[in-house]
């Protein structure tokens, strides 16, 4: 096994070389941060959740099996962390306050402005997807997990993951169009 692979590193952490976790942190914390950011919309909450994940990795390092890929295991933990966070929240979480729009420059180039509007609309649309569809979409499109791994992570069959992806993209497209107000620019 590749000595620097995630799996190997985590096994070393499990077996006592905890400082190896630093490498895993450097490799994964930005992706994890964005995963939580897209789920929660809140930067500081997302940072807390990332911290939480690594804390739990340390705490439960003994339980790491080489059988599951490290990424799958880590996102299992990540989802748990997120769920625990949601439970602590009040139901009406304001979702639209945290995406910080960069302040408009003096003479914004048209292309940059329209691209920014586009990105914000898409983020908003993503926001409005139901949680399960959103998670699966994020794991596939952003965390770049294979469908097989997501199926393992969520404990369901790969067919249902694929059809959820299809439905999620379709729904995302619909919401995105609606936010644009009809046919594009």
């Amino acid at each position, binding site marked *: 096994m590749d000595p620097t692979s995630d799996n190997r590193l985590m096994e070393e952490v499990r077996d006592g070389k905890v400082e190896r976790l630093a490498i895993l942190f450097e490799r994964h914390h930005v992706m994890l941060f964005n995963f939580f950011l897209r789920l929660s919309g809140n930067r500081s909450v997302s*940072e807390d959740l990332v911290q939480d994940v690594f804390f739990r990795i340390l705490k439960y390092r003994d339980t790491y099996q080489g059988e599951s890929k490290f990424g799958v295991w880590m996102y*299992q933990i990540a989802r748990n962390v997120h*769920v625990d966070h949601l*439970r602590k929240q009040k139901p009406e979480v304001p979702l639209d306050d945290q995406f910080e729009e960069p302040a408009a420059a003096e003479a914004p180039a048209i292309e940059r402005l329209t691209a920014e509007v586009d990105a914000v609309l*898409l983020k908003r649309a993503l926001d409005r997807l139901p949680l399960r569809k959103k998670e699966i979409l994020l794991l596939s499109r952003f965390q770049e997990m294979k469908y097989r791994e997501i199926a393992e992570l969520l404990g369901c069959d790969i067919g249902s993951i*694929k059809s959820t*992806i299809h439905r999620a993209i379709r729904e995302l497209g619909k919401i995105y169009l609606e936010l644009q107000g009809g046919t594009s620019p």
Partner: protein
Amino acid sequence: MNCEKIRERTADYLAGELDEESLAGMRAHLAECPHCREELEGLSVIWTKLGVLPNEEPSAELRSRFYGMLEAYKKGLKKEGQGQGAKRALSIWLGRLMPRKPAFQLGLALILMAAGLGSGFLLSVRPRSAARAEMASLKGEVDGMRRIVAISLLKQASPSERLMGVSWSARIDRPGDEIIAALLQTLNHDPNVNVRLAAADALYLFYDHPEVKEGLIDSLAGQTSPLVQVSLINLLVEIRERRAVEALERLIQNKKLNPKVKKLAELGLVQLS
């Protein structure tokens, strides 16, 4: 391959996971099925756009927090190392919580996930009024951005970009005075006939806005292009604006008026009286 199979393979297609054979089969079907083609293209666009969403950077604090925690943990371990027995007991206990037999582990994971999903699902179904209020505030924010883009586009030298500016203005949910003024300005002073026509159409969508009706009526007197005159006459008749009667009468008096426009104006008068 039929439409059903295309649907099944969409997720793999988007992720670039289709094998040569399936890809070929898909392409063959798409060549003949405009419906699937359209759907797949739409989905591909969204998939690609998602890919372009930028990644954000966490603050520097995150890293220092992590390393702080790692250090603390290492120190704690050293101390615990002195109490070996306790640590072993802890790990065995934890081990029981996360049994090593894969099936069991999966089952436990399922339970955990189900619980997680359950609450997640409930939380995502917001009460209707909250959802609508959210949509409204969302629209407000999008409007704000559209306003900036529209105003900027309307000032460009290229008529195509000014057309885009009119188009963006038309899409604003609640145009403020600034947008209405910009559209009226464009209707009255844009050097290009096409852009003026587009502005008239856009203003039509907002005719319940106070300045618009007055603006459309006033504009008629100043227009020299017969096409724009036709457009305005049609709009004023459509919204049944009786105050336009005077403007139409004055227009008809104009000796230089294109005879077709004159006929239309006369018809308009009849309809408005």
